[in-house]
């Protein structure tokens, strides 16, 4: 909507500008790490490991990005992920069907999405409170299901969990002379399919454009004839659905249900989205940016660890510092642009 018009006037929209900055910083950071720290950073597997470990975070962040573009917030995503993992593991250990477990994961996510979306968009309750309640509910349900960690021992599932895509030519030769092929987990494939689908939806689909419209200016969107309530509802439904999916991917990565699974994931997801150039005020954002946001966040942590700061507090202090840097950068860049426009 009106995007082509804007393109002619300006070389880059806010969304594209912020995304470009993030991708640029990520590449520079990774290159510097390759030059100065070497070690694992020279292997392709490092990137794949980052993706393998964070596939579920990427999926959750994509859902959050959609909600944030629409001007809302969803902090229940981490807790829903944890609930999905626990329920699926318990179902599978009780002799369940693999396919049904996937359906359960998606259904739980959908239930949360529909419930929260209804409360937020049709009853006009503040999203923070509703999703906070959703988070409490999901966390509480997880411990009600089981306080103790549960390991999935379903045969079909273990097969699925251990299935990895191996790419020999991207591998490296280990010290003992064996070729270690690069490994990618199935979760990463799922995450990338999600990213592509959401990217296409946000760019070319009417619903996707509507998210930007209601996030940018709700009043104008209403006057343009957009069903604001339904659009907002859909954003939460999508976010819920993706957290359900992320739960399954999380389970495929860890293979066990634990009450503390995905603790703090909601804040990591918000941080990834912000670093990726999504604004909490809505109307600006992109899932590709979010992907790089997640990768940037992980790279910072990896760099801290491999630079020898072994004290446990350095990781989060540097993450906080980087977050501060990105947030200030966005504020300054956008502030200068808006002044120029005037």
């Amino acid at each position, binding site marked *: 909507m009106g995007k082509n018009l804007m393109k002619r006037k300006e070389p880059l929209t806010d969304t594209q500008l912020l995304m470009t900055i993030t991708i640029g910083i990520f590449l520079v950071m990774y290159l510097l790490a390759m030059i100065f720290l070497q070690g694992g950073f020279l292997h392709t597997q490092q990137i794949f490991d980052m993706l393998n470990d964070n596939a579920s975070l990427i999926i959750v962040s994509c859902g959050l990005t959609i909600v944030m573009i629409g001007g809302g917030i969803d902090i229940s995503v981490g807790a829903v992920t944890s609930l999905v993992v626990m329920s699926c593991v318990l179902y599978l250990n009780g002799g369940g069907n693999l396919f049904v477990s996937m359906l359960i994961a998606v259904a739980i996510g959908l239930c949360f999405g529909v419930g929260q979306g209804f409360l937020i968009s049709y009853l006009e*309750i503040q999203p923070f409170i509703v999703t906070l309640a959703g988070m*409490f509910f999901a966390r*509480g349900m997880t411990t009600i299901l089981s306080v103790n960690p549960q390991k999935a021992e379903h045969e079909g599932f273990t097969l699925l969990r251990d299935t990895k895509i191996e790419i020999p030519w991207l591998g490296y030769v280990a010290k003992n002379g064996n070729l270690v092929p690069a490994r990618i987990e199935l979760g990463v494939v799922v995450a990338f399919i999600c990213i592509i689908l959401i990217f296409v939806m946000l760019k070319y689909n009417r619903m996707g454009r509507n998210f930007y419209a209601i996030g940018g200016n709700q009043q104008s969107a209403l006057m343009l004839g957009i069903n604001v309530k339904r659009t907002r509802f859909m954003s939460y439904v999508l976010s819920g659905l993706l957290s359900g999916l992320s739960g399954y991917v999380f389970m495929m990565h860890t293979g066990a249900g634990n009450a503390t699974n995905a603790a703090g994931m909601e*804040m990591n997801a918000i941080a990834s989205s912000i670093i990726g150039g999504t604004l909490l005020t809505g109307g600006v954002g992109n899932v590709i940016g979010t992907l790089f946001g997640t990768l940037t966040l992980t790279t910072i942590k990896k760099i801290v660890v491999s630079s020898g700061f072994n004290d446990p*507090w350095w990781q*989060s202090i540097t993450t*906080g510092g980087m977050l*501060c840097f990105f947030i200030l950068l966005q504020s300054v860049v956008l502030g200068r642009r808006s002044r120029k426009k005037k």
Partner: protein
Amino acid sequence: MKTNKKLFAGGLGQLTIPVIAIVLLVIFNLIRDPGFFGIAVMHNNDGNIVLTGNLISIINGASELAVLAMGMTLVTAACGGQDISVGAAAAIAGSVLVKVLKSASAINGGTVILAFCSACIVAMIFGAFNGVLVAVFKIQPMIATLILYTCGRSIAYWINGGATPTVSSPIINAIGSFIPGIPIPTPVLIVALMAILFKLLFHFTSLELFTQSVGVNGSAARLNGINSTFIKLLSFIILGVCVSVAGTIGVSRLGLINHETLLLDVEMDTILAVAIGGNNLGGGKFKISGSIIGAYVIQMLTITLYAMKVSSTDVKAYKAIVIILLVVIGSPVVKQRFGKLVEKLMSNKKTVSVKGAE
């Protein structure tokens, strides 16, 4: 007739939800166990005469939350957003408090005051950091405070040097539990003191009006000669003071600082208290009394659930259900529908009641 209608459509104004919630909880508890709110006078281990009972433990347990909710209300009203770093900042303040106390040769009244002042200053500096991000750089409060939320507890860990130091002193003990000779728990007195301070602040300055006008429309307030940047910054610094008070209470209760568990998840409860208090989370009009009642609602709910033998990890799920019920009752759409329904029911008797009123 008019008052009648108003009462049904939320006549108590902002305080409708918190008051209804507290009344419902009290009734529920009285039905469940008539002796639930009984207060007993007992001698504690130190030989002091103290009050005990569920009611006292509710009021006592909600102290930190109430103090934080007061400051959070101000931030919410001025900036239209919430500070999610209060728990982490309280951990930092607590660590500074313990660090200063530990470095002193003997713990007496003077060192405790010195330690509290340094904790207060540190918390105010971190508050100012958040405030500058929000007021000067125009970043949404939740994102700006996400920075401190991410790294705050690690900074506290760093201050402690990777340990969880303990302090034992009769003064710290008195702050956390009872002052000899006074049967009321000290944290309750601190909450009362903070509430009085806020009342005095609003009475003698125009802060309340200025905060509201900045929250309703920042640029209009600026055009009217109110320094909105300063008001926002000030609200965060005041929250910093509240955070240090809450941190001090938290540390004094246990006599140790644990950076991981001190006031864990308190930021969510605080925001909830502000919301239950009927304050608009988008800024503008506010009532500190509402937030304080909100804090007690949350604590009463928690204690009620504990009394019903719900385990501490499962409490969250039930809490969520109650929260949803409360906000659904308080939601503008439901209120409107309910108001219309009541009007419809009343319309049959309308003529009669109007005649009766005149």
